[in-house]
């Protein structure tokens, strides 16, 4: 039986549709219930919904053999897992955004508000730019408007929220999408079922 951690929410439902299309369905998963774990013994899968940012932890710690996590989470937390497939869904980008017309004053330390401190630090450190990270857990866009930061590093999907707050993308750091990840030890002992699942999901990805 493969234990699969799926991210709660719209992305998780989209990803589950891919798994179901690939022959690993578990209809009870979409029913409104208080259940947290869903089995389909015939298909050899057990699903559970978890907070998107926790999927990688469940997989790294072996509670799940495989899972689906955003590349943003993988880059930020660097879990020791295999990244087997780019599912090509949940596409967006990690970007630097600033108030419209912003000009970076290289004589000053750049104040960067973000939920993704490691990604921001790595990005600016590669450029040799001195920054002050302001770690926030949400509503990042408000930080430069209130003068808390000069720029933000955040996920941008359509850019609507940025535009509505008179912010604009000034740099794209990395494209983001959902990735199929596997526990390293689990992969050694469940190689055949994991490979079979990856092969079938790959066919679904190719149809997107």
């Amino acid at each position, binding site marked *: 039986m493969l234990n699969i951690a799926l991210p709660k929410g719209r992305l998780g439902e989209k990803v589950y549709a891919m798994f179901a299309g690939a022959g690993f369905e578990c209809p009870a998963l979409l029913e409104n219930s208080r259940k947290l774990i869903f089995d389909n013994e015939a298909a050899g899968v057990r699903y559970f919904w978890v907070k998107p940012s926790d999927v990688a*932890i469940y997989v*790294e*710690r*072996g509670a799940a053999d495989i899972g689906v996590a955003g590349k943003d989470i993988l880059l930020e937390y660097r879990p*020791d*897992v*295999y*990244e*087997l*497939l*780019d599912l090509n869904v949940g596409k967006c980008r990690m970007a630097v955004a600033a108030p419209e017309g912003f000009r970076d004053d290289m004589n000053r330390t750049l104040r960067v508000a973000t939920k993704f401190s490691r990604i921001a630090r790595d990005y600016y450190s590669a450029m040799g730019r001195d920054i002050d990270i302001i770690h926030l857990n949400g509503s990042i866009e408000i930080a430069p408007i209130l003068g808390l930061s000069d720029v933000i590093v955040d996920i941008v999907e359509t850019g609507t929220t940025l535009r509505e707050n008179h912010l604009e993308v000034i740099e794209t750091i990395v494209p983001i999408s959902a990735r199929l990840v596997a*526990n*390293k*030890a*689990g992969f*050694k*002992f469940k*190689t055949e079922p994991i490979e079979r699942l990856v092969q079938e999901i790959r066919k679904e990805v190719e149809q997107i």
Partner: protein
Amino acid sequence: MQIEDQVLDGQERIGFRLRALYSGYGYSRYRMSKFEEYDLYSRNKDFLFSEGVITFTDTNGRLMALKPDVTLSIVKNGRDTPGQIRKLYYHENVYRAASTEDGFREQTQVGVECMGDVDGGSVAEVLKLAAESLRLCAADYVLEISHLDLLSTFVDRIAPDDAVRGMILQCAGEKNLHGIRRICREHGIAVGAEDPLVELLGLYGRARSVMPKIRSLAEEYGAGEYAAELSRAVASFAGTEMEDRVQIDFSATGDTKYYNGIAFKGFLSGVPGSVLSGGQYDHLMRRMGRRDRAVGFAVFLNMLERLTEEGRTDA
């Protein structure tokens, strides 16, 4: 006085059995102080499993560290032994920053280091000891073996610089083949140039199934000598009960500033990460002014807490 088995906990019992195993192969115990000058670790940060080191100022003003690693101390304090082989084992506590939380953890390691005129026979013996160590811990185990010089040959033919090389090697360790293709496109590497590397990384499993293909691919790209080394290293398992437990997998990587040749990791069913890690580290020896060659591994005893009762072989 004989110590009764029941007064030992699982980790202690396995620790002592591993020591007996290594001693039986002619390895002698290496004891060391808990402290080492911090400078040793600051010069070899990338060799350590974690970045954090606990430091303090000694009574004579020297900046000291609680040992985060054993191998560096053994290399630093040893002397070259031309024409000879020095076989050592240790059973020590190390102090490392936990990867997922703040703070440090004390971890117990048992391991072996084989230094000196190390040849294919010594590497094969260390691999055999690694497999036997895993078997002592649990019945269901896997030892995965890679060859860093072979892998590097395939990476170096496409990577234009060290930064790209590092990114590709990281993807190799994650079995992230789509990531390798993306990096190649982003850095203007010709489409398809990465295909041999991707093919190599796709060749994993039992040696008898994958070695013929690895040999032929390696010969095509000028790495036949490394494939032959890998082949010889796993040959001693052929026909033994360990044969099916030993797998070739090039995702077992290591920092090539320190490691070269054979690299390996050990896994036990029911434990989420690798419980054993090792390989040849001639490059570390050169960096520390040593001419000897070296190979070794460590077993992380703390990881064994996760073993379920039915999985253990120490009960």
